[in-house]
């Protein structure tokens, strides 16, 4: 094992260059955002663009501050977050269970295959009217929509992962006389942890699509509701603020999942 003092000058130079390149990426990323916001603000201030249609960074900030102080913001963010996370958890868990059932029994899998393909291809928004009639006009409808959007794709990708588990490892389990349950818990499930975390990442986006689309259809609160309300009343400041907030929320949720993935997988896969 070498320690830092034993590194050759060339090696140090190599490491320094690598670090420089990494810093350059970070600076450019941040710079891109600053320049974008700066140009937007500049064009708005000089009157080159019509703030009535485009809003501006300062007005977005102002809107967010005002709404935070009067408590409106928290209420709407909370509503959307609740629907999204609830739909995310239910959709993922249900999708996982369906995938297990389909993996378990070849007959069941073959029977359901064409149905899954059709349901997967169906635009879930088409079910909106039905969902409202069946689940009511409250939060439940929105959660159902969110679940529908994530559950099918979760089930299909996990089932494919389960079925593609290394045949020779399955053979190893069989040679040890493992039961089906043991084969699942000791091999198939852990071997597909990367499949699961990949699905969890995809589902972050899916769930936000579900909840915002649900709120477009039927809602009295939430960021999707605010977006529709804002556009109908031509309050572009509000629309832009909601969009920025959605970016932030989805980004944070994705980051949490990515960190969880890193912890779960470490260097084992």
């Amino acid at each position, binding site marked *: 094992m070498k320690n830092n003092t034993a590194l050759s000058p060339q090696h140090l130079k190599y490491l320094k260059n690598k670090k420089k390149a990494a810093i350059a990426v970070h600076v450019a990323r941040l710079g891109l955002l600053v320049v974008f916001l700066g140009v937007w603000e500049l064009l708005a201030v000089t009157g080159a663009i019509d703030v009535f249609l485009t809003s501006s960074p300062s007005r977005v900030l102002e809107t967010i501050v005002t709404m935070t102080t009067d408590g409106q913001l928290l209420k709407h963010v909370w509503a959307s977050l609740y629907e999204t996370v609830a739909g995310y958890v239910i959709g993922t868990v249900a999708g996982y269970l369906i995938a297990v059932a389909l993996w378990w029994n070849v007959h069941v899998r073959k029977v359901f295959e064409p149905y899954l393909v059709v349901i997967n291809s169906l635009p879930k928004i088409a079910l909106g009217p039905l969902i409202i009639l069946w689940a009511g006009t409250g939060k439940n409808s929105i959660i159902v929509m969110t679940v529908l959007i994530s559950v099918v794709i979760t089930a299909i990708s996990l089932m494919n992962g389960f079925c593609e588990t*290394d045949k020779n*490892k399955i053979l*190893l*389990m069989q*040679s*040890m006389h493992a039961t089906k349950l043991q084969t699942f818990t*000791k091999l198939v499930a852990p*071997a597909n942890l990367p499949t699961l975390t990949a699905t969890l990442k995809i589902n972050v986006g899916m769930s936000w699509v579900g909840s915002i689309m649900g709120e477009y259809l039927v809602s009295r609160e939430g960021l999707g509701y605010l977006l529709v309300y804002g556009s109908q009343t031509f309050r572009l400041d509000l629309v832009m603020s909601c969009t920025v907030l959605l970016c932030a929320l989805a980004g944070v949720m994705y980051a949490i999942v990515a960190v969880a993935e890193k912890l779960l997988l470490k*260097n*084992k896969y």
Partner: protein
Amino acid sequence: MQDILIFENVRQVFYTDTQETVAIEDLSFAVKKGQFAAILGPSGCGKTTVLSLISRLIKPTSGQIKILSDNPNAVGYMLQHDHLFGWRTIEKNITLGLEILGKKSKEDYLYANTLMEKYGLGEFKTHYPNQLSGGMRQRTALIRTLATRPDILLLDEPFSALDYQTRLNVCEDVYSIIRKENKTAILVTHDISEAISLADVIFVLTARPSTLRATHVTGLQDIPSPLKRRESKDFSAQFQILYNYLNGGNK
């Protein structure tokens, strides 16, 4: 010595949509307790079928396979690749078989631990497989198979995935461990020199449908190492004999 595995007129047929394939036809042989046997055959001769039959993953179409042991877990199977589970530590990989069997007794785990210490895996217990060299991984796979205390060890070309240098070393390693633990071993291979360097007795199979062409006794069991066996003076003569068998010559 007592027989531990007996094949009696075993026949195995496989079906597909378009054809019926006879993989094995009237195969009979017996392996004695403590023997190191090799099953040598041309590629595609149904070696894997023989392995699946011995490990009771499939039942013969007709004929009988007898394993003379009270041990319900009499056969341990070592596959071509190590197939260690990346998410388990070396220790957890080795005790996988015990977990599956529901053998939770202290004694079993102690035995697995003893094996690990004895064969130099003790310091790697908490490591993950990707931190180990190919040779060490293969050794871990062998210890995993031994941990459930099988009477018969099945080796499915366990060195074929390794580069030549590692292959010779791992071969040496596996041989000495199997001898020290006093196990009956059955190696399935198409590599003539590997068969001579490891086995006491070699069963040569014909091409499909496989049946026994010849039984060859190497008489090298007193030479304690596969590498040394390769240096013995009748090694090349034996190679020639087996080569002829494989290519259709008769006894």
